[in-house]
């Protein structure tokens, strides 16, 4: 293999990891909500987008960058909690299309409000680290301080979520509320709060994702920021299995790498086509996701 090809492959893998980390985060946020409340949240991109506008808007009032990030997270927690309490709670036990439609309506309204308040003109966010690739022997290596930051952030967030779920009392209650709400209540778990918390966590993970995406020089922050990313995140979550946080993250990263190669060796239009093909094929092979143990549906 000649060195040009080698460097191209390495660059693609590194670039793919960066994108994949983003897809994995979106997939993770979808899984958090799905496991807790059996709602596929189509506003999963729009809610954090709104939080990001609220927090990062303070940059124009000369608030420090990291304080703005903190405000974004707080706003995300608030939006997540409000959404679950007001919009989602009346939908439990209703036919499964009802929450789908409501969340699509919510997506429309959030994007419209964001555009009405902040306009559709992209707003550039400063990247906290340089987005210019490191160079090796004069060649860009496909990895910049900022993209490294993206990957590290994604890994930290994923690690934090897994730790929370696996090893803490709170995580135990979160999982139990999702799996067996009635039994959990009999054991004194405040299931209602756990469901709200699931939405809050999910929106916060989304806000981290939205900030990373919007910090990209080419996109900037727009009301439709997350539409396309959401589609990839959903594909990752569906391929990995909506019930499996680890599966969602893993397939998000894998999807990012595969699609980077597709974009590089075929063309950019083929990316979403291949992603759609992967989704269709994987759903035909394993309707509940490739990385979940197949369980019979509860009747």
């Amino acid at each position: 293999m000649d060195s040009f090809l080698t460097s191209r492959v390495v660059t693609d893998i590194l670039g793919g990891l960066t994108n994949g980390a983003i897809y994995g985060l979106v997939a993770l946020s979808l899984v958090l909500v799905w496991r807790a409340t059996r709602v596929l949240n189509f506003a999963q991109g729009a809610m954090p987008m709104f939080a990001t506008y609220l927090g990062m808007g303070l940059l124009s009032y000369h608030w420090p960058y990291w304080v703005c990030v903190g405000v974004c997270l707080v706003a995300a927690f608030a939006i997540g909690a409000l959404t679950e309490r007001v919009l989602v709670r009346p939908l439990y036990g209703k036919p499964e299309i009802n929450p789908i439609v409501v969340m699509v309506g919510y997506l429309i309204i959030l994007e419209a409000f964001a555009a009405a308040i902040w306009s559709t003109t992209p707003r550039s966010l400063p990247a906290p680290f340089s987005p210019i690739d490191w160079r090796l022997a004069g060649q860009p290596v496909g990895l910049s301080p900022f993209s490294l930051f993206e990957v590290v952030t994604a890994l930290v967030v994923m690690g934090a979520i897994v730790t929370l779920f696996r090893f803490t009392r709170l995580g135990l209650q979160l999982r139990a509320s999702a799996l067996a709400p009635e039994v959990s209540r009999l054991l004194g778990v405040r299931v209602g709060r756990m469901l709200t918390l699931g939405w809050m966590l999910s929106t916060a993970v989304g806000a981290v994702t939205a900030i990373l995406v919007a910090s990209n020089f080419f996109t900037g922050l727009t009301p439709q920021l997350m539409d396309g990313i959401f589609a990839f995140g959903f594909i990752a979550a569906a391929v990995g299995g909506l019930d499996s946080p680890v599966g969602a993250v893993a397939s998000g990263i894998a999807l990012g790498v595969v699609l980077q190669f597709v974009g590089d060796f075929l063309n950019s239009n083929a990316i979403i086509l291949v992603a759609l093909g992967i989704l269709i094929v994987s759903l035909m092979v394993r309707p509940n996701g490739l990385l979940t143990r197949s369980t019979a549906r509860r009747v």
Partner: protein
Amino acid sequence: MITVERLTVAFGAVYALREVSLRAETGKITAVLGANGAGKTTLLRTISGLVAPKSGTVSLDERVLTRRKPEEIARLGVGHVPEGRGVIAEFTVEENLRLGAIVARVPLADGLDEQYEAFPVLGQRRKQHAAKLSGGERQMLAMARALIARPSVLLLDEPSLGLAPLVTAQLMATVAELCATRDLTVVLVEQNASSALRIAHHAVVLNVGTVVADAPAAEVAADERLRQYYLGMVE
């Protein structure tokens, strides 16, 4: 002590319980007997707050439980082992126990040690998924999970369901021992009247949502009419 007063529960137009009153004394086992559909499970679910009654009250000692949420009632010391045990199959044995200990006031490690001592088989299988347990082991896990929170009341819904006679006998012995040593108020719902009456102090017989007998267990066990018509116990 659990006091149920004139409790009426309806699902739409169907009455599950009509004006049911009963008392479960502290430190005693009160058996609630009756055929399928007599309202036994509904009674327990109403006590623990899963079902809202149409009228009537449930109290724990002096405190009224009616209209409280199930999680609050659990936190007041009512442990409910539901029908079918409600063991979370996706959790390991230990995770199930940890979940039960959420509302406990004793340190988790002590609680776990105590339960593993009382149910050694659970200790051996602590890292296994509950899905792998046998019926009897699941029942033990469900009981241990309720007990780890140190409840003052234990509601048991059909613990013998699906268990072999020998296992049932063992289980009943455990319940009797727990009740005596911990001063527990036990409400034991059973279709298997004979094994329940063997350990119960008091028995209440329900038929289609109404109380047809409320007497010491020995009396109920001796009543030929009750045995034949309501308890399906034929020599």
